[in-house]
């Protein structure tokens, strides 16, 4: 409840800040305001995939079902955030470059590969049952995460001049008056991920308890 409220406040503050307080970019103009949530959600998706990977390792070490739940929910939220990143990125690209998508941009293509990899995670989950499903999912989440840093570094290695690189080894390539609102949006997105993860885990636990109750009632009725 506290986490959810804090997240709502942060999200609202970041929207107000980036529209009303943050200065307009001299190079791109108003369209640059997409950056704040586009990048924050992209980083949020990478954090979600990292959590899915760590949960996979913990499931394989401990074998407790809660880590399978954490992994599955995190991968799902990561996929949702990735889809939002691609859609907002495409809108930004249309406004800035005049095209929805560029197949010659390494960042865009590697990010699409990451999305397809995690979509396959759910295909795998639905194709197996019981302990096997949980084990396969854990192993897959660990290996799929290898593609995430690949997407992050692809644009730097390929020296792409199409997709901008804001965060470099020398720090953020933007003034402090913009960076502060990006940080607020980023903390809000991480809070949103944590809130939704907590809510989904609570629902899964409740669903299991309810299924258990149904079985007991069936046994009583028999």
């Amino acid at each position: 409840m506290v986490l959810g409220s804090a997240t709502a406040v942060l999200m609202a503050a970041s929207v107000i800040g980036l529209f009303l307080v943050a200065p307009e970019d001299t190079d791109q103009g108003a369209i640059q305001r997409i950056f704040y949530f586009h990048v924050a959600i992209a980083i949020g998706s990478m954090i979600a995939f990292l959590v899915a990977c760590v949960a996979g390792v913990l499931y394989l070490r401990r074998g407790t079902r809660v880590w399978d739940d954490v992994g599955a929910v995190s991968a799902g939220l990561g996929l949702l955030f990735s889809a939002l990143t691609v859609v907002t990125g495409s809108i930004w690209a249309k406004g800035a470059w005049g095209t929805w998508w560029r197949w010659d941009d390494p960042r865009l293509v590697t990010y699409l590969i990451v999305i397809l990899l995690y979509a396959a995670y759910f295909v795998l989950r639905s194709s197996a049952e019981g302990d096997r499903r949980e084990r396969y999912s854990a192993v897959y989440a660990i290996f799929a995460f290898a593609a995430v840093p690949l997407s992050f570094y692809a644009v730097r290695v390929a020296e792409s001049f199409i997709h901008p690189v804001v965060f470099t080894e020398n720090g953020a390539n933007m003034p402090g008056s913009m960076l502060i609102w990006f940080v607020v949006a980023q903390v809000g997105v991480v809070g949103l991920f944590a809130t939704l993860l907590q809510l989904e885990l609570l629902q899964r636990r409740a669903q299991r308890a309810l299924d258990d109750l149904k079985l007991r009632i069936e046994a009583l009725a028999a």
Partner: protein
Amino acid sequence: MEYVVAAYAVIWFVLMLYVVGVGLRTARLTRETELMARVLAEHGEGPAEGRAADEAAGVGR
């Protein structure tokens, strides 16, 4: 500016849709839990069932 509005509209629409989905699932779980609790009361509730019912009902709080 219309591109900015479109991008943020997509984000908020999808997030709202997700939250509504979670809310609907919570409401279904709560309804089913109440139904199970009534059935258990008719059959005479044991301690193990009581704990499970309490846990299942926790999602609606």
